[in-house]
């Protein structure tokens, strides 16, 4: 999306690269972005409305079919307030730089195992492990 200074409106400057991620529609504070789906395969007439509410942490959709059928949907987007995520700097530091364990994995509840898993039986098979290996099957 680029901003056209003359008409003071944003526009899709590169439609063939648009993947319809809809982030422009969701993030526009004025809810001013109107969309229709691709001319290659979508008959006209369907409509979409979306409100992403970061206070209530819900996203609301209205989909209107070409034949007029209306569907409303609402889904949660997050379970915690925005800005609350714990960063790497907020996790107590460790000194085991040489170990294979990552951040928080010194605690079994984060690792999922009492210690870092390694294969029970470490083998070395060079080439096919299949029993039936003859070529030219087709």
């Amino acid at each position: 999306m680029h901003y056209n200074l003359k008409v003071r409106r944003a526009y899709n400057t590169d439609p063939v690269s648009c993947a319809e991620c809809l982030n422009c529609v969701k993030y526009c504070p004025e809810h001013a972005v109107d969309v229709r789906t691709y001319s290659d395969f979508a008959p006209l007439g369907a409509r979409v409305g979306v409100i992403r509410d970061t206070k209530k942490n819900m996203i609301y959709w209205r989909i209107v079919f070409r034949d007029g059928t209306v569907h409303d949907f609402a889904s949660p987007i997050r379970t915690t307030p925005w800005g609350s995520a714990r960063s790497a700097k907020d996790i107590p530091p460790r000194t085991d730089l040489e170990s294979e364990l990552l951040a928080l994995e010194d605690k079994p509840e984060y690792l999922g195992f009492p210690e870092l898993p390694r294969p029970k039986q470490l083998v070395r098979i060079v080439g096919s492990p299949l029993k039936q290996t003859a070529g030219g099957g087709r």
Partner: protein
Amino acid sequence: MSLPNPPTKIVETDILVVGGGMAGCGAVFEAKYWCGGKCKVTLVDKAKVEKSGAVGMGLSACNLGVFTTDPDDPKPEDFVYYVRNDFLGIVREDLVYDIARHMTSTIKLFDEWGLPIWRDPKTGKYMRTGRWQHPIHGESYKAIIAEACYKSADEVYERVAVTHPLMDERVPNRIAGVVGFHVRDGTFYVFKAKAVIVAAGGTSLLYRPRSVGEGMGRTWYPTWASGSALAIPILAGAEATSLEFRLIVVRFKDAYGPVGFPYLLLKMRSTDVKGKQWEPLPDEAKAELSKIFFDYAWAKPTPTPIRTWVTVTNLKQGRGPDIMQTQERLPDHESLHVLFEDYLDMTPTQAFYWAANNIHPEKTPSELLPTEPYIQASHASPGAMWASGPADIAPPEYKWGPNRMLTVEGLFGAGDTVGGSGHKFSSGSFTEGRIAGKSAVRYVLTQAKDYKPTVSSDTIERYKEIVYRPLVWYHMNKPLTTTPETPHTNWYEIHPNYLNWHQLLLRLQKIMDEYVAGWGMFYVTNEYLLNRAVELLRMLEEDFRFAAAASYHELLRVWEVYHRLLVGQGVTVSMLHRKESRGYYFNADYPYIDETNWHVFVNARRDPKTGQWSVRTVPLIHILP
């Protein structure tokens, strides 16, 4: 716009992460954790990290979930066997195992940060749709992960597209940083670092997509995944692996909505147009397929390349397209809502497609179609870069440096960059980023402690000239055409001296589709076609001398096409080398799997000085029985 003379900004750091998607955010988070105050972590992304990368659109599942001691949860071994079968044996088991054993801490972090992961109301455990996946309400998946990433990074540079790696001028085969430019203000960026982690995107739009007009952007893997995950290391002279093993997925026709939820959660089935069931695949079909795919045809679940092959065969033999019988499994309002919300969270176009075409899934089935091929290593394909494995489990042949370091000193990878493995998806890519992040910190604080990048100012000026040449070329030659200047790329402009990015891209897609087993050829090729493709791709590379960009936006597109072209060359030479047909294509000269001779990796490398590719066969070592 006059001739550009943008300023140069030099950024010095310890660890540079290229690409702020899931893998990049994982790398930043983990690298900063282990760096503390001892080293600096910098992130560069060509878009805005809050919604960049493949997960920027949202996602409806963490396709790789927790592995724990709980008997209900899978173990890393189970996952390795699954990926081995799904890739028809072509797998780096050390890398796959390594991701699985670190998954639980990643999912717990996501949960803490606020990602709505569905839980089983009775047990309170994360719900599963299949063996590995947890369903989520993931519209804001990326935004949540990005928040932790922003807070962890020392510096974040957004809207800066990385075009080339910078090599050290004192130490051979040693990365010293990268260069790129700001896609809005045009500033030239030079990043110098002790370690570079490439966590950029895989390759979409290398092949001609199904829709070629306005809908060209509706590819399954997003359009902004321009192959930089592979191209940046390839330009540095790093070795790639399994590029011939491209990914083709069966998706809802045109909108490319994924089929995982319908099959796994809603237990739908698909048939051909005559009503014969193909998914779940009946045993008699598996027996027939085992003549081509041996025991892989009996693997549970049926490997993705085989399921794709079934759909392709149905199409080719006139029974297609396959049809998802949605109406059989949507008995009530609630199930219909689950289906729609799944797509609205992840691939909104799928919902719009149904609305625009008056397809009511509770009444009407939907067509499925195989996509064009993609090259990436986070989904059901292993094609990307060759990386060193974890110290404790990798065979000696797969260990030449720190975990996840590529074959160039100081250059690491994660996510779509690290080949030979896959099925990482979003959560596994984040995990691999974390693995690479810790590994890079260990490297920077020990082995590379005293390293200082050596890059001369002449080199910087030379790259600046290379990067902006398409802009300069456009302005030098523009007066020679009578076609009026337009605010957007003029797809149909005819100019004797230059080609715009869209023209270059369409030529690339036509070559790849028609010569290198695209959908237009039903994914079939032969040695004649591949050899011709090598010639045509070489001429296309030469034609980049005539690439023209009217704006910084078009300049970004030109370099994205160039990255795709490099990946395309690698795919072609790798396919030529493999004298069998394994993966999502058939080489008509060798139309079968040859387990005796070709259960191996095919690795390709481009000489950065000459641009010549060389290919070698590498033994494939399994570490599990």
